[in-house]
């Protein structure tokens, strides 16, 4: 059944805007990766692949790459598992679930800069919420230097990132769960399946598109996370929370090497593209069968 010609008109306005105000500037920005532009001067020179070579040997870049991967893994695991687990208990439509979903969603509407401030205080070693509560609960030796311990800091920031977005993912999962026809679930249960079996055989496969969406969106979001890291740690201590996006910012604006920043962006894009592709394949989201 051939779709109508007016479809092309549907595409027109949005695509035009997109190409003009997004794609074109992005391509220009990426073009600078083969120059030595510093972001300020009116002139620059072509340097071919020099920036890429520098990048490969750059100690800080390598650290940023490793940290980005660590950060991403921590956020994706924490966020996906927590939001799915909570969503499973929130599919019923009553006042309580509505209220809880609204509460969980609240952190998402707060700007990430504010989230950064709030969690910096929560993590403060002497005056913060977390350590104070642990002390009062007689768990004093569980207190940590959350943002100052070089091995722990990145995970502390990851927890804050997850906190800010779990509510968002819950909404997606709930929509996906509510789309599963109740008859299928009833039938499976009547056939004698345990809760786990029902989940694995019926719920999970049908949830695949929502899950794929959640995982890939979280991945990209965590790679791009900038405001949070910038506000909470600035990349420290000693580069332990330096991720790709803060590296790019530093290269572009603090060090005056816009060309290098652009080359790092190209690597960034390729990396995220690869991850997203792999995830979609893994979750087999393009096959939704009833």
């Amino acid at each position: 059944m051939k779709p109508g010609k007016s479809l092309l008109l549907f595409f027109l306005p949005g695509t035009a805007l997109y190409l003009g105000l997004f794609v074109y500037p992005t391509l220009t920005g990426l073009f600078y990766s083969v120059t030595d532009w510093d972001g300020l001067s009116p002139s620059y020179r072509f340097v071919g692949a020099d920036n890429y070579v520098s990048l490969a040997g750059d100690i800080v870049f390598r650290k940023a790459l490793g940290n980005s991967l660590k950060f991403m893994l921590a956020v994706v695991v924490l966020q996906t598992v927590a939001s799915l687990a909570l969503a499973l208990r929130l599919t019923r439509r009553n006042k309580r679930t509505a209220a809880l979903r609204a509460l969980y969603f609240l952190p998402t509407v707060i700007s990430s800069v504010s989230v950064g401030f709030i969690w910096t205080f929560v993590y403060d070693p002497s005056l913060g919420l977390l350590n104070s509560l642990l002390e009062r609960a007689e768990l004093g030796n569980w207190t940590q230097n959350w943002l100052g311990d070089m091995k722990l800091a990145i995970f502390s920031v990851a927890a804050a990132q997850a906190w800010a977005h779990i509510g968002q993912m819950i909404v997606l999962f709930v929509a996906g769960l509510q789309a599963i026809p109740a008859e299928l679930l009833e039938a499976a249960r009547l056939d004698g399946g345990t809760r786990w079996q029902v989940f694995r055989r019926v719920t999970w496969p049908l949830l695949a598109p929502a899950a794929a969406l959640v995982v890939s969106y979280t991945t990209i979001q965590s790679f791009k996370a900038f405001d949070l890291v910038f506000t909470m740690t600035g990349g420290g201590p000693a580069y332990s929370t330096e991720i790709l996006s803060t590296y790019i910012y530093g290269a572009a604006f603090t060090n005056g090497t816009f060309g290098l920043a652009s080359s790092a962006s190209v690597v960034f894009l390729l990396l995220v593209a690869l991850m997203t592709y792999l995830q979609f394949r893994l979750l087999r989201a393009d096959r939704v069968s009833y």
Partner: protein
Amino acid sequence: MRWLGRFALAFYAAVVAAPLLLVVFTSMKTTPQFYADPIGPPPAWNFSHYRDLFAGQTMWRYFGNSALVTASSVALELALAGMIAYGIVRSGRRLGGFLFALFAAGLMVPSQVNMIPIYALMRRLGWTNSLTGLVLVTAAVLLPLSVFMLTGFMRTLPKALLEAGAIDGAGETTLLVRIALPLSAPYLAATAAFLFAIVWNDLLFPMLLIGGKDKLTLPLALLQFRGEYVTDYPMLMTGVAVSTAPMVLLFLFLQRYFISGALAGSLKG
């Protein structure tokens, strides 16, 4: 096992609520009171910071600007992305796949890359101090996200209905407006909610593209509280509270549409 689930819900509710209470508490302390006791409840319910914030007419102006930019951007976004998502779902593999990839690719671009080029472009177009320009840039930058999400959702729409409508002689526009959009209602609401929060809190593009004092949006205005080395936390938290409250109210209002607009309706019927 049921108690485990209940416990998890209650625990996470506390995890969400505690830091937010901290915001409210802090906004009600004077600076010395804050330093004396950073995390406890305030000694008194002190609304002086809120009063100071709204003292000049200017705060309402910034509220208005934020509301204007956010509402315009989101509405524009839903319209444009909705049409594109529908088109992608209805098109063949080649065209649909290509367009989807084009938009989805945009998701991966970090803002640092196109920040300066976008500013340069807007300067050439003469749009560096206009709210219209800001709305257009915001809409453009959010298209990857919106198209990505809406396409994913619209793919789950029952093809049978659309085919039936087409056979009955309906044109694409009719199909879109009378069948696809109503069915997508909960998804549009969900997307709208996400977009609202993103645009309302956006700092980057307003910072770059707005110059005149009368056009400041709320987050930009609140930046003033962050001085070079002075961070007036009670005032800052007041600002956070004030700028978050409208979002909270709006979400609560839209929430009803989430719940009631279940997709299963059309399948059952």
